[in-house]
């Protein structure tokens, strides 16, 4: 999802301690930063929470792209508020990762060096205003699907960040659906734009859940540690089942000829996304990977003098205060 294909680290530690740790997790206890934890748990979580945080931050770019061109002042205010929320989500999550012993600067540097990833979805462009609706409806919709169960994840700071985030996400999805509904109910050209946005965002949204369970090598350990609650395929199925009627209401067509209600499983059958495309995007070959990294690198570099200047000012003020006492 926002954290796709997070590799779980093997753990070689005192089996007695490991068993006691697993027993705490099985009993539904929360693990807190100062508690003993296996190295693998710590490292996997840094990777997962970090990737999630980076996704929130990079995820501001495709939507930020439309702030100055929103069609009304109200839509502009809504989009600004939504994008600002995503900045907040990134910050909650960075703080949760930092409790595991990695610094904010290290996290940023690992994103910029390509060592850490962010969700594949943000490497697709937002070409029209309807895309902003599709992003809120589908991308935030898919994110919610994953984040709601993570409120029960075993690591306390991560779970608490998720509670805050989930409170704010529902606005994101609803404003997106509201936006695309206005277009679907508009002129034929507007409706065509809404359909086009759905066509382009459908499969990338399905990819957000990560590869199929049969190809997902890291799930078992992460599920035992309760840092992953549902499998990729479970969540993807849930997302499709939820979204199809929403599209029908709009009079839009899901771009999948194989989409069919399956009475036996009580859910839809649907086509898999093109996983080759997914792996290519993760490798850096998506339509916007270079742009996104360029934008983040520039922001980090151009902001350096502000960060340094404010720190120097704070140190000077502190010295003055001490001198005055």
């Amino acid at each position: 999802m926002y954290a796709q294909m997070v590799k779980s680290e093997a753990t070689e530690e005192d089996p007695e301690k490991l068993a006691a740790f697993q027993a705490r997790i099985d009993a539904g206890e929360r693990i807190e930063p100062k508690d003993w934890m296996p190295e693998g748990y710590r490292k996997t979580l840094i990777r997962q929470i970090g990737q999630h945080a980076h996704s929130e931050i990079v995820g501001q770019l495709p939507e930020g792209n439309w702030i100055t061109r929103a069609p009304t002042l109200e839509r502009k205010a809504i989009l600004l508020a939504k994008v600002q929320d995503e900045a907040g989500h990134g910050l909650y999550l960075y703080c949760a990762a930092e409790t595991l012993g990695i610094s904010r600067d290290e996290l940023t540097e690992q994103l910029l060096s390509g060592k850490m990833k962010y969700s594949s979805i943000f490497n697709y462009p937002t070409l029209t205003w309807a895309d902003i609706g599709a992003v809120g409806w589908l991308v935030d919709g898919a994110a919610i699907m994953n984040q709601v169960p993570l409120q029960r994840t075993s690591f306390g700071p991560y779970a608490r960040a998720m509670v805050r985030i989930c409170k704010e996400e529902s606005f994101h999805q609803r404003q997106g659906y509201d936006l695309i509904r206005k277009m679907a109910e508009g002129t034929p050209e507007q409706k065509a734009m809404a359909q086009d946005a759905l066509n382009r965002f459908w499969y990338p949204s399905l990819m957000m859940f990560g590869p199929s369970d049969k190809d997902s090598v890291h799930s078992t350990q992460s599920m035992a540690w309760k840092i992953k609650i549902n499998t990729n395929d479970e969540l993807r199925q849930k997302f499709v089942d939820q979204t199809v009627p929403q599209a029908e209401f709009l009079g839009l067509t899901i771009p999948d000829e194989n989409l069919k209600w399956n009475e036996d499983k009580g859910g839809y059958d649907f086509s898999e996304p093109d996983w080759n495309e997914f792996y290519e995007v993760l490798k850096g070959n998506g339509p916007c990977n270079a742009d996104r990294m360029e934008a983040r690198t520039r922001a980090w570099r151009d902001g350096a003098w502000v960060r340094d200047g404010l720190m120097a000012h704070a140190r000077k003020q502190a010295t003055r205060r001490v001198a005055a006492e």
Partner: protein
Amino acid sequence: MSSEWPLWEVFIRGQHGLNHRHVGSLHAPDAELAIRHARDVYTRRNEGVSIWVVPSAQITASAPSEKGPLFEPANDKVYRHPTFYDIPDEVGHM
């Protein structure tokens, strides 16, 4: 020189006169900016009427290993709770 801003813990008091409650943390160069950042990060939807910020480095926490000695003594002191005492129904609400 490392330019990483220090970490602050943020406490917010909500509308209804309750205690300030820990809501999370953030980075800021000094206390004044920590409050401004806290306003933006933690009170975007009327969550608070007052903010405290404390440098994280100033917080002393109990160690997880002390859990037993610190908190277990309270376990067998049921008489500290009102439900320990039987008050006859005839007495009415107490």
